[in-house]
């Protein structure tokens, strides 16, 4: 077993503890929606770095292209035209993709050991070689991000460019952003940067501006600066208070150990029955 370049904090369907001695810096990507011009350089840089070339789709009447996340499009720009006030049209452009939750629903729901891992720096990464293509991660995700590929029946999503961060680089989308709407760094630094942006937006009349770092999923490692933080749903349906589905919590939290215990007890009972009562002898005649 090789030492990982990033320490693993949590691993899907694994109960043994992960190495936790080394303290690595928690990182975060901050997307300032007020600075985004919707040029999609991040989409292009993402595809280029990750060697993905999605099929050329069709225009669906809006700028969203592709219209949704796919196994080969790990980030998409979502363009929302909203009238927050009467006669004041706002074009809210949100870069959608994995939020890298501190408490990841996908990892919790995943039944395949090691298919989803969370690194100690906050990245939630899928390892397709262990993926069984069951799609539980999609059910578990409060942001509807993972997608199963039709090509190989495995789930894919943004890796936060874990291969770049592991060698000390920033993600490809962050690097390319021409307006500086996407920034990357230590999570504390990103929160600090966001505070400055929120103060600026408030002084410009966006009284409800704020940082989107939802605590329902333990905070995220991809955060947004929103002009209207009181109404995240304006931004193409960003959930206001995301949390992991109760079903996932029930199944993985309570039901699974109980059922595992049930199976274990059944095996044990069978064993003792065999020891005590012995095999059920059958007459040669009955067998025939």
């Amino acid at each position, binding site marked *: *077993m*090789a030492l*990982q*370049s*990033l320490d*693993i904090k949590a*691993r899907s369907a694994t*109960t*043994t503890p992960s190495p936790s001695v080394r303290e690595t810096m928690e990182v975060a990507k901050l997307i300032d929606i007020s600075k985004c011009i919707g*040029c*999609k*350089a991040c*989409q*292009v*840089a993402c*595809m*280029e*770095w990750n060697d993905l*070339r999605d099929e050329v789709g069709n225009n669906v009447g809006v700028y969203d292209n592709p219209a949704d996340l796919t196994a080969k499009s790990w980030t998409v720009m979502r363009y929302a035209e909203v009238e927050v006030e009467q006669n004041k049209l706002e074009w809210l452009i949100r870069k959608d993709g994995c939020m890298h939750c501190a408490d990841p629903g996908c990892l919790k729901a995943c039944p395949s*050991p*090691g298919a989803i*891992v969370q*690194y100690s720096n906050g990245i939630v*990464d899928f*390892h397709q070689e*262990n993926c069984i293509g069951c799609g539980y991660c999609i059910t578990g995700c409060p942001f509807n991000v993972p997608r199963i590929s039709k090509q190989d029946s495995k789930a894919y999503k943004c*890796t936060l460019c*874990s*291969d*770049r961060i*592991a*060698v000390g680089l920033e993600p*490809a989308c962050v*690097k*390319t*952003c*021409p307006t*500086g709407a996407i920034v990357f760094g230590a999570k504390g630094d990103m929160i600090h940067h966001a505070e400055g942006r929120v103060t600026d937006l408030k002084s410009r009349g966006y009284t409800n501006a704020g940082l989107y770092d939802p605590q329902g999923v333990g905070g995220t490692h991809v955060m947004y600066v929103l002009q209207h933080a009181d109404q995240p749903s304006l931004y193409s349906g960003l959930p206001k208070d995301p949390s992991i589905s109760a079903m996932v919590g029930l199944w993985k939290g309570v039901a699974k150990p109980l059922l*595992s215990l049930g*199976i*274990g007890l059944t*095996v044990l009972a069978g064993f003792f029955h065999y020891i005590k009562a012995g095999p059920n002898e*059958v007459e040669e005649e009955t*067998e025939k």
Partner: protein
Amino acid sequence: MQVTRRQFFKVCAGGLGSSSLAMLGFSPNDALAEVRTFKLERANETRNTCPYCSVGCGILMYSLGDKAKNAKSSIIHIEGDPDHPVNRGTLCPKGAGLLDFVHSPNRLKFPEVREAGSKEWKRISWDDAFTRIAKLMKADRDKNFEAKNKDGATVNRWVTTGFLAASASSNESGYLTHKVVRSLGMLAFDNQARV
């Protein structure tokens, strides 16, 4: 193979038992997951300027192989140059997609000519291309150059030919281009300076 009812039950029970044990965690551990290996580890890094618009962003081009005699280089990745004062590492969507522009099957790699009335593009050498351009320019200039206008004022203009220059030129080459074009009297002079 003859399987009795009893043997069949035994096989089923054994299978169920072992798969249950595996589900309970009594199975060998998988190798721990690692991040995708950094693909530029020893790739050759070359500085260049984005060819698209006149902003002239600096780019880093990464190519396969270390330029050893027997290794054929091929560009595998392009990203912004963080040390370049113009873009400081950023690139627009066109610049960010330069890799596919470099490897595009539609990319023009040599001079071609389509003769008047012909439907076919014909490949010619650079020497032939320059000679041809020079000859045609001279013929047109000799025919249409106006030293004076109809009121007798000196104008020294040549309005029947235009010149389109590259957007990624340096200040020096831009200066030289300007001098050459203007000294010929050419007025229609533009630059592909658009994103």
